[in-house]
């Protein structure tokens, strides 16, 4: 891991050149907030650096909401996704375990992963429900992204992480090795400041393993109480960077369309004979927590909640999972 530095103007020029050969998506601000958009030359100055976090999770780039999975098409242009927060990068580990599984690897997912360069951005500051640190995830990436891009004092700093990131950096011709200790100190100061804010905001929130135990021990009455304002809309699963359940829909010619599905929808587990283990609302509600904090950790190495807090923001029933955990921990 090492740093490069480049003037912002030169960086933007390099990005513009990359648009000829790549589809570049980056986090920009619009009237609805901050989210990824396909970047055109005129959008480059609006790209946001170091600010948490795009409204939609990274998973949508690899697992579209709906697609025909029986066609073998591959994305034409290589993709660059710029400004990915570390919570979303950590979430990708679970998706890789599921979709790149050696027995049944999903070739569409794999092609997209191989065709995409992921550029992270450190979070300088936090949003209301950010709590990555509660689950031992840093608000900046040092391992799983290809590289990170930071905007500091009119300069762009590149932190090179992977070999793919190293290769990419050769395309940014005017980037120079960073030897200014003041800038490094400034980055570290921002890291510490964000970490302190996260620690202060989420004081007392149980860690991932403790949450698993609390969720596992909670009885029916607790789930009935907490699910009372849930309307089974599935917003929490749709916005979650690690929820990827889906439905296969048959089309003529033995084609199959894969569409996002959610355990929160009635009928998710219903079989033709009528049995439905998730018939009751509180069972569906509990299922999501058990899946994230108890069952997935038993089955997979990667974490199934990265503390992005999007499910709290998206819930129209105003259900705040962190408030639930704080109550359970009492």
């Amino acid at each position, binding site marked *: 891991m090492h740093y490069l530095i480049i003037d912002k103007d030169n960086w933007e020029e390099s990005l513009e050149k990359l648009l000829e050969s790549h589809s570049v998506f980056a986090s920009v601000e619009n009237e609805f907030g901050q989210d990824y958009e396909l970047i055109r030359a005129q959008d480059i100055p609006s790209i946001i650096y170091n600010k948490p976090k795009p409204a939609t999770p990274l998973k949508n780039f690899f697992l579209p909401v709906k697609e025909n999975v029986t066609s073998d098409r591959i994305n034409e242009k290589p993709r660059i996704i710029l400004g990915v927060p570390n919570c979303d990068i950590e979430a990708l580990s679970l998706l890789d375990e599921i979709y790149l*599984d050696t027995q049944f690897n999903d*070739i569409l997912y794999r092609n997209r992963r191989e065709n995409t360069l992921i550029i992270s951005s450190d979070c300088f500051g936090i949003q209301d429900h950010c709590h990555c640190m509660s689950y031992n995830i840093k608000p900046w990436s040092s391992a799983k992204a290809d590289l990170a891009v930071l905007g500091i004092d009119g300069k762009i700093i590149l932190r090179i992480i992977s070999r793919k990131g190293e290769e990419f950096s050769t395309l940014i011709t005017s980037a120079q090795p960073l030897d200014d200790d003041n800038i490094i100190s400034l980055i570290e100061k921002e890291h510490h400041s964000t970490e302190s804010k996260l620690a202060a905001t989420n004081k007392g929130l149980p860690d991932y393993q403790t949450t698993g135990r609390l969720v596992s021990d909670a009885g029916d009455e607790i789930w009935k109480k907490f699910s009372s304002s849930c309307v089974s809309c599935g917003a929490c699963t749709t916005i979650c960077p690690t929820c990827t359940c889906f439905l*296969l829909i048959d089309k003529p010619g033995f084609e199959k369309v894969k569409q996002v599905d959610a355990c929160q929808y009635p009928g998710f*587990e219903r079989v033709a*004979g009528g*049995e439905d283990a998730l018939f009751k609302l509180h069972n569906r509600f509990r299922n999501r927590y058990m899946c994230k904090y108890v069952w997935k950790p038993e089955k997979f190495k990667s974490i199934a909640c990265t503390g992005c807090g999007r499910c709290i923001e998206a819930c129209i029933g105003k259900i705040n999972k962190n408030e639930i955990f704080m109550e359970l921990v009492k």
Partner: protein
Amino acid sequence: MLNNKNIYKPLRAKLTKVIEESPLIKTFVLVPEKEFSFKTGQFIELSVDGVGEAPFTPSSSPLISDKLEVTVMKTGYVTEYMHNLAPGALMGIRGPYGRGYPVEKFFGKEVLILGGGCGFAPIRSLLYNLIAISDKLRKVTLCYGSKTPEDCIYKPYINELRQTPKFEVLRSVDKAEGNWNERVGVVTILLDDVKVDIENSVAVVCGPPVMMKFGTKKLLEMGYPEHDIYLSMEKNMSCGLGKCGHCMMGEFFVCKDGPVFTYDEIKDQPDIWN
């Protein structure tokens, strides 16, 4: 090393024959466009073009790879379409998926099989396999229950099985009609008639969830250890690949970790009989 196969694409199979087993159950004889092998107890996703697909454990012998039989009860949207298909139709097959019956663990033992309704389908495939290795088994007892005599499936096969050395068949119906001269009552009453050396035996249960629940309970009461009761679980196996999440049963994907489990593996998971 990851392979480049598209895991969602079905193999085409020609429907060559439809056998009416009971008013609600038909067996579809399929010839896949290329050889298709499976282990007994594994399942496939069988599709009707443009309509949908559903999981079934083949009912034919796992030793045959050029032909496949699938026994289907008319229960829902997809199976209703299937029941209207005629020979000549093209169907889609994905699989085989999951973990089947570990028949090598049955060597030297008695096998007690408890089946109900259309749950006989996976059992018939298992029986074909057990017949092929019967020299390694002590005895096989099939206890099979259905609602009425008319609902009993595989009648010619039952007769064959009754002529097979080491194999015994006991049947019951919930409600007797006509000249039924076997047992009347729920299938678990047949277990009262079985003489079995439990210490040298394994039990296999397959059928509707309520039958599986009470069948397992009775086997436990008889003294079967939890790890010697093999259950073929029924969940909403949609993708078959351990990805779509529909068949999650606690920490298990039934499609990938099952569908055959021992009772001790799953007894602590939620809602196993729902």
